[in-house]
């Protein structure tokens, strides 16, 4: 046995390596990350790190000495380019023998496929280098256009608006965060962003980016409108990095397929985090899903480590997500799937409310705005299988926690 190779040093990769050690595995563990920095937290890149409130040291997932102390061989700034027969090779020519393999390769940022998308001043935000570039680029930029009304785009838009910049968000769908929240929550966020000075264009497609002297100057919409821009942030999602898995012979239809034990179709090969396509965590019969969140990365990594070592996997968890925009804390628990009813508790005008998703009378998820108590009640109810019928949830006169008797 020549140990475990973990490819990818994000939240999932680090947790996987740590969980192997915590599970008593004493075989060599090599953790390879393509970025030059030691492993760090990604969520603050579009929040505190962008605003300068969190510095690079505080972004670190673990202190520099931690890895050596745990006998985890951390390799940064190298990418595994090939692997076969228990031996991996990096782009710097390093050879790493392994007996077991963990893929925690994450996702790559999606780019706009329109004329002008390679102009200077066009930014993406996925890793720390992106965030550093964006921070530098924002220096003198006044007119910001954000393409994509999802978490990343809206967080950056909020940050820029708070700094007094002129911000327009262009979203192709007919509502913001359409994949993540209930329609009522999308409407609330559109109104709230606009109240705080962000312009929102829904149903807007981008036809081209216009520039002068190789620098972006405008975003040209499909209907011919032109939005002047000193800086464009493209936040239209990410795609799983499946190259290595495919080279191993795995079929990867939109993610690396794994089962509930984080096993791929190959013996001795597990996968965890944003790159995986997993059985739906909460709705039996729903198709496989890719869950992009820290919670999923950490949980699946623990599951994967237990699979590799034959240990006990951690108990089931309810997926959860969060996004900070302006002074609004959005917390989502559960995964809504074809919901047929949404119960809104509280008045959105107070900027404190929660939307509970139901399908066939069964609670699936909550979108909680500045309402951590409701978020937690639902998260706990979902995890423990406690019923919270819609007709009970509709009683806004009483706190949710009293209604479920927790």
């Amino acid at each position, binding site marked *: 046995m020549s140990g475990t190779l973990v490819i990818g040093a994000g939240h999932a990769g680090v947790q996987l390596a740590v969980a192997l050690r915590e599970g008593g595995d004493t075989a060599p563990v090599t953790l390879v990350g393509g970025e030059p920095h030691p492993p760090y937290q990604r*969520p603050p890149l579009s929040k505190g790190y962008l605003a300068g409130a969190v510095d690079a*040291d505080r972004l670190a997932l673990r*202190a520099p000495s931690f890895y050596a102390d745990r006998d985890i061989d951390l390799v940064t700034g190298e990418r595994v380019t090939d692997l076969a027969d228990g031996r991996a090779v990096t782009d710097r020519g390093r050879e790493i023998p392994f007996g077991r393999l963990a893929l925690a390769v994450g996702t790559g940022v999606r780019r706009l496929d329109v004329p002008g998308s390679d102009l200077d001043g066009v930014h993406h935000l996925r890793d720390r280098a992106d965030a550093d570039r964006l921070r530098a680029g924002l220096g003198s930029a006044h007119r910001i256009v954000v393409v994509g009304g999802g978490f990343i785009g809206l967080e950056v838009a909020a940050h820029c608006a708070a700094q007094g910049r002129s911000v327009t968000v262009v979203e192709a769908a007919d509502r913001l965060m359409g994949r993540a929240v209930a329609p009522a929550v999308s409407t609330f966020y559109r109104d709230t962003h606009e109240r705080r000075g962000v312009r929102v264009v829904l149903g807007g497609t981008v036809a081209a980016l216009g520039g002068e002297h190789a620098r972006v100057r405008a975003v040209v919409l499909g209907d011919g409108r032109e939005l002047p821009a000193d800086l464009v942030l493209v936040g239209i999602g990410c795609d799983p990095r499946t190259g290595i898995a495919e080279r191993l012979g795995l079929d990867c239809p939109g993610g690396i397929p794994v089962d509930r034990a984080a096993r791929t179709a190959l013996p001795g090969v597990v996968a965890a985090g944003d790159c995986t396509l997993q059985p739906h965590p909460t709705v039996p019969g729903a198709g496989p899903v890719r869950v992009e969140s820290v919670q999923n990365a950490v949980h699946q990594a623990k599951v994967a480590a237990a699979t590799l070592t034959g240990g006990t996997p951690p108990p089931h968890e309810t997926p959860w997500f969060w996004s900070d925009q302006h002074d609004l804390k959005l917390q989502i628990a559960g995964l809504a799937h074809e919901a047929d009813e949404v119960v809104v508790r509280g008045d959105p005008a107070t900027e404190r409310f929660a939307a509970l998703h139901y399908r066939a009378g069964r609670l699936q998820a909550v979108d909680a705005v500045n309402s951590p108590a409701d978020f937690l009640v639902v998260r706990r109810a979902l995890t423990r299988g406690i019923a919270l019928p819609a007709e009970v949830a509709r009683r806004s006169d009483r706190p949710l926690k009293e209604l479920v008797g927790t």
Partner: protein
Amino acid sequence: MPKVLFVLPDGTRTVVDARGGDSVMVTATQNGVSGIVAECGGNASCATCHVWVRDDFVALFDPPGDMEEDLLDLAVSERRAGSRLSCQITVTDEHDGLTVDVPPEQP
């Protein structure tokens, strides 16, 4: 550097040299103190960094804000007088010797 002592549920004691200005959570996670999960990275979103601050030190910190109150009220397994989310309390030189107990389970 102020020292922070973490007492784990099994009685194990871990002493960490904190960087002044870091939260108790960052101090714990970066140094691999087990039992402090801190899933949200210090955002007062998840309550998985709950600790019990020992009595002598409780008054040295500002009281919890509304969000933290809600999370402590609902999320933690056993709320005590010294219950705090460790992401919301910052270590400075005046906290040298700070002692916190790590609860057996996080939400």
